[in-house]
């Protein structure tokens, strides 16, 4: 949790710098951000390739294991879409974009901002960070009410790293393997979904 709060603090520090104009306007932040984003996804790609044994897990648990990330994704998209209907200033595309973050706050918010939607990017950052923090805090209650898959669902993509700790703690090891598999699958899905949504909708 400390890690996500740290990221939130950096973001807030940035806002303060922006408000007080502490950075010369000659620096083209958007251009630098574009290249930084490339570096980031490159690094993420390498890191993801490390999660070994994914194929082994699929073999043991059968292909129906994919149903979990699939349903989690659909649930997020449908939930966000429904809420978006109540906002006249959030279009269908942005509702889907916010749902497609799947808890992957850094990548989803930065990608959406890169498409030129800074405000939606900020909402994506906050909402996806909350998914992680809420899962960390409420995991025991969530499990009690909705079963052992539920914290994996609420966590989304972070179910392979940051929230994995509480998922292991409050459920079991087998669930942890499912959780990791889910996190990796969703982490790959997030950039694909957001590209799809913002490129074609």
């Amino acid at each position, binding site marked *: 949790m400390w890690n996500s709060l740290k*990221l939130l603090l*950096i*973001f*807030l520090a*940035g*806002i*303060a*710098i*922006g*408000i007080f104009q502490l950075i010369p306007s000659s620096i083209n*932040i958007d251009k630098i*951000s574009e290249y*930084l*984003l*490339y570096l*980031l*996804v*490159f*690094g*993420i*790609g*390498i*890191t993801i*390739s*490390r999660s070994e044994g994914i194929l082994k897990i699929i073999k043991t648990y059968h292909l129906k294991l994919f*149903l979990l990330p699939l*349903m989690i994704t*659909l*649930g*997020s998209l*449908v939930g*966000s879409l429904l*809420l978006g209907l109540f906002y006249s200033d959030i279009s269908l595309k942005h509702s889907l974009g*916010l*749902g497609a973050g799947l808890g992957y706050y*850094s990548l989803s918010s*930065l990608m959406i*901002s*890169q498409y030129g939607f*800074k*405000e939606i*990017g*900020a*909402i994506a*950052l*906050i*909402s996806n960070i*909350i*998914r992680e923090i809420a*899962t960390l805090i409420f995991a025991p209650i*969530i499990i009690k009410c*909705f079963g052992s*898959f*539920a914290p*994996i*669902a609420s966590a*989304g993509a972070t179910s392979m790293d940051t929230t994995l700790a509480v998922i292991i703690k409050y459920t079991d090891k*087998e669930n942890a393997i499912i959780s990791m598999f889910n996190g990796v699958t969703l982490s790959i899905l997030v*950039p694909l979904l957001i*590209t799809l949504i913002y490129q074609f909708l």
Partner: protein
Amino acid sequence: MIVIGIFFLGVVLGTICKKYHKIFSYSEILTTVSLYLLLLFLGISIGKNSDIVNNMTQIGLKGVLFAGVASLGSILFILPLYYIFPKKEK
């Protein structure tokens, strides 16, 4: 689109160079540094935009609500899976 291409380039490179463990500590540093900078810059470009700054409470509220519906949607959608996956209730 470029983002997806570069992402999979990373995956391929990581898979090929799996034996060189150092590559993963490098990628760790790379992602951490670029993530911090990107979030800082996202903050800066939002801070410079007075429309967004004046809307900050609205943005925060929307963030909370979207987090709620997305998590709840995901949780509700996985409930049928308990019938498909082998039960191991304690």
